[in-house]
């Protein structure tokens, strides 16, 4: 009966209590969105980096190397020699070495020159390949292209279509130069990998070189292979061998080796600081919501002193009216928290979808195991916020308010 009374009391002032619940909902939604998106972002990045044990590229920033080879972002540092790639490929400690060349784009989507070994990269032995052909086949000849799922969807490209690339990376602000005389033909479309390579266009390294040789050097000019490769994705036979290789490469002057996991851990630290700021903001919003609950219930209690007095006259104890006020707080904060969790999921799903669409970077946020903890925390906050109005109701005298 007390629960029913509490509910009816809330319904008696729908606007006031709806606004209170809304304040709680916004606080919870913000907190939820921060947690869900941070988790999804981390999962998405980690997942995208899983198939790559070590990346070897030109000396420079390892962050840049990882960003441009795995996430197809940022500009490549420079090239490493073809010889180095051959040495890595022949190294007994290396199970597979996949050379990568970056440089051109088609309507903003990066062209990735690679060996066919790129289609055999797996996050772990026995897992299915990271890049799976959904339609068509992998490239065999020069100027054949396999396009990522997002590229096919956004540019409406189908197997058999042709396109010409533009020199340089999209968004660099450089004058773009079109390789109009060397069109590519789509021979395959990847199944969605839900990662950055969904936005890549894959072809043979030779295609990339040939386009540039012709443009820059002409037939019979500088040896194609002197152009080198942007990076080599290294799959080791053993962890010990990988570590030896890593030390050797970084000790030399020719190239650097980078572990994506290690680089991403550093990036996560940076992201963690942003997340902490957002968490503090969420905390402030939650505290404000709790204050709103307290003030709202207090004034509702003041306006309802006569009703409280009637309940006391009917035999309700002071404890009963205290519990009644606390139940009201629980209902308001519970409703607000539930709405906030739904809203948080909705917002983070929307942002997650946008991130996937724009950068193919994020896993979609799912259920967060700490949601029950958040719900419990909000209810406790609501109970704490109800203490002041509950004690006011508890202390309210009966006789003076019965005939108000």
């Amino acid at each position, binding site marked *: *009966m*007390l629960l*029913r*009374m509490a509910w*009816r*009391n809330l*319904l*008696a002032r729908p606007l006031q209590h709806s606004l209170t619940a809304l304040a709680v909902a916004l606080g919870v939604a913000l907190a939820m969105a921060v947690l869900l998106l941070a988790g999804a972002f981390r999962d998405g990045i980690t997942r995208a980096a899983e198939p790559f044990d070590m990346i070897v590229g030109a000396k420079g920033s390892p962050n840049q190397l990882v960003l441009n080879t795995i996430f197809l972002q940022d500009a490549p540092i420079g090239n490493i020699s073809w010889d180095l790639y051959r040495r890595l490929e022949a190294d007994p400690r290396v199970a597979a070495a996949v050379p990568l060349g970056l440089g051109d784009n088609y309507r903003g989507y990066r062209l990735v020159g690679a060996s066919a070994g790129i289609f055999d990269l797996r996050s772990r032995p026995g897992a299915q390949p990271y890049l799976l052909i959904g339609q068509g086949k992998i490239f065999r000849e020069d100027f054949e292209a396999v396009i990522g799922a997002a590229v096919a969807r956004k540019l409406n490209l189908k197997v058999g279509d042709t396109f010409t690339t533009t020199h340089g990376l999209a968004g660099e602000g450089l004058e773009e130069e079109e390789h109009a005389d060397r069109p590519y033909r789509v021979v395959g479309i990847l199944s969605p990998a839900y990662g950055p390579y969904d936005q890549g266009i894959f072809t043979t390294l030779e295609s990339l070189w040939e386009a540039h040789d012709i443009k820059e050097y002409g037939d019979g000019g500088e040896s194609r292979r002197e152009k080198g490769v942007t990076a080599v994705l290294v799959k080791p036979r053993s962890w010990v061998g990988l570590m030896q290789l890593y030390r050797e490469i970084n000790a030399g002057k020719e190239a650097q080796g980078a572990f994506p996991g290690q680089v991403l851990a550093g990036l996560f630290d940076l992201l963690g600081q942003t997340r902490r700021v957002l968490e503090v903001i969420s905390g402030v919003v939650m505290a404000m919501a709790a204050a709103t609950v307290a003030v709202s219930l207090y004034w509702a209690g003041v306006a309802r002193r*006569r*009703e409280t007095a*009637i*309940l*006391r*006259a*009917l*035999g*309700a*104890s*002071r*404890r*009963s009216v205290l519990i009644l006020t606390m139940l009201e707080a629980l209902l308001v904060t519970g409703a607000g928290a539930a709405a906030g969790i739904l809203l948080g999921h909705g917002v983070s799903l929307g942002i997650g979808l946008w991130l996937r669409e724009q950068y193919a970077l994020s896993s979609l946020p799912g259920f967060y195991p700490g949601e029950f903890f958040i719900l419990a925390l909000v209810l406790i906050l609501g109970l704490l916020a109800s203490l002041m109005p509950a004690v006011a109701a508890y202390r309210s005298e*009966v*006789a*003076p*308010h*019965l*005939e*108000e």
Partner: protein
Amino acid sequence: MIQVKNLEKWYQGPGGTRVLALSAPLLDLGAGEEMALSGPSGSGKTTLLHILAGLLLPGSGQVRVCGHDLRRMTEAARDRFRSAFIGYVFQRFNLLPGLSALENVMAAMAFGNAVPPLGRTQRAAELLALVGLEHRLRHRPGQLSSGEQQRVAVARSLANRPSLVLADEPTASLDTVNSRLVLKLLRELCHQHGSALLVASHDPLVLDLFPRQHQLRQPDDGVRRDDLAAAHGLA
């Protein structure tokens, strides 16, 4: 049922003066009996009813209600006493506006043990039928006329099968027809339930219905108490 002897209730007045709000030298009411309580405004009728209901502590004197010495009871004990033994009808009905007629009657049962939880809905519906409101069970107070609201209040006062029903000016907010109806119902239902009834009123039409009356006199301490009583929520 009610034994009052030399009861006085004092309030702290302006400037620290003490003001006598009620003086009841002797009042006695047996089980199942009925009585009207009369007296001019400010004579302490409401104060006396509040004391008898355990809502206010007596000042000095003796007050026993349903065998309980109210002066010796804690507030929590008086809350339990009130829900177990007392039914109360107010001048302004005092129904809970957010609850339906049925729920208002059930609300009284929620704080006592007289009616088991599973039987409360049926009991409330039966009581409302007895006051002729079986067709208004789901209506809220705002959807009822004044007379209907007071009939709900009468049904509520009997919800816990109280030994004593206290009615404070129960007809003051009603027209003559509804006044007669409410009083008739109140007396009949108290008689059926074996509850004693004490009705405070200064309306001669009400007082004439009660063969037994007790008149409170204006306490004489030289202070005007109408304003003071109003300041304490008492008439």
